């Protein structure tokens, strides 16, 4: 966790330098305002989302989860997770806490990769509210079909990496 913290702040610092170079201090201030604007909606929602995830961890029947998408489930688990991902509601603030719960419930890495990839590319919610209205249904369906194998391949790739690196 400390390594990712360092990495994030390293990138943030490097980008600040770039912003100053490109847009000066005014640009940096604008970027800061932008960041603060993104933070404001989270003040209530983020603690709530994390608390909801923690409560869910206490009450959800975790056994079926590990049976369905556990680390030993292989390809069927990857397929199940891909489908599950498409139906996850809402944005990253909801989905990543859910993924944390599933991780602690024993979901496997390849299966979680497929789940996140499935949510990323399908997200039926987003398709209904943005993609179809802006791009037309025909495009939305074309894109949907083009992505069918994407989460499965992602999960498969993760499994490959896992077995190559000798992880369980």
């Amino acid at each position, binding site marked *: 966790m400390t390594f990712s913290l360092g990495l994030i702040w390293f990138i943030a610092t490097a980008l600040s330098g770039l912003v100053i170079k490109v847009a000066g201090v005014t640009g940096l201030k604008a*970027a800061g305002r932008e960041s603060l604007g993104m933070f404001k909606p989270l003040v209530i929602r983020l603690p709530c989302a994390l*608390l*909801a995830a923690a409560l869910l961890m206490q009450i959800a029947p975790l056994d079926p989860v590990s049976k369905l998408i556990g680390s030993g489930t292989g390809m069927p688990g990857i397929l199940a997770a891909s489908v599950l991902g498409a139906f996850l509601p809402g944005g990253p603030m909801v989905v990543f806490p859910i993924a944390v719960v599933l991780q602690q419930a024993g979901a496997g890495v390849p299966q979680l990769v497929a789940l*996140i990839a499935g949510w990323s590319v399908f997200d039926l919610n987003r398709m209904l509210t943005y*993609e179809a209205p802006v791009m037309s249904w025909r495009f939305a369906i074309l894109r949907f079909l083009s992505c069918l194998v994407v989460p499965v391949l992602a999960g498969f790739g993760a499994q490959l990496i896992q077995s190559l690196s000798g992880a369980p």
Partner: protein
Amino acid sequence: MEMTRTDLVFVGLVVALGVICYGIGGTQAVIDALLQAKSLLLSVLPQLAGGLLIGGMVKQLVGREKISTLLGAGAGLRGLIVATAAGAVTPGGPFMSFPIAYALWTAGAGAGVLVTYIVAWSLLGFVKLTVWELPLMGIEFTSVRFLVSLPLPILAGLVAERLSRLRVFHFDTGAER
């Protein structure tokens, strides 16, 4: 502090889950959940702060026009690679990416480029990655997922190019939908 409707939904969700949790596991289960949420929040916050800063910087550096010009150039495999990069650096939610895609469509971009761009934005989006995935899922998981996802937008774009030759999916430009 103003409460929006979405905030209320989140608060309602917590209250409902809290009641159920109390019903099933009693006070101890609720306390356990609170403690876990607290430690999760404390580990996420410093990373989230950095992530949001990155988001703000990226928004300053890459505007809508820049991405559009970037994507206008090049067709074929090179176009798909450029579309992947453009999608990965596009900040913000669907209210940002889909209007860009639509503008490109009316400007004559093909189905392959559009699909690659959208898939890259959703799968590799740099801001989402640093703000959410890295803090919550950790560096190991995030890098594995990023690595295996890297070629997939191009693959989806190639499939889309093929599919768009079918009559059902035949459309010239977005202007005549």
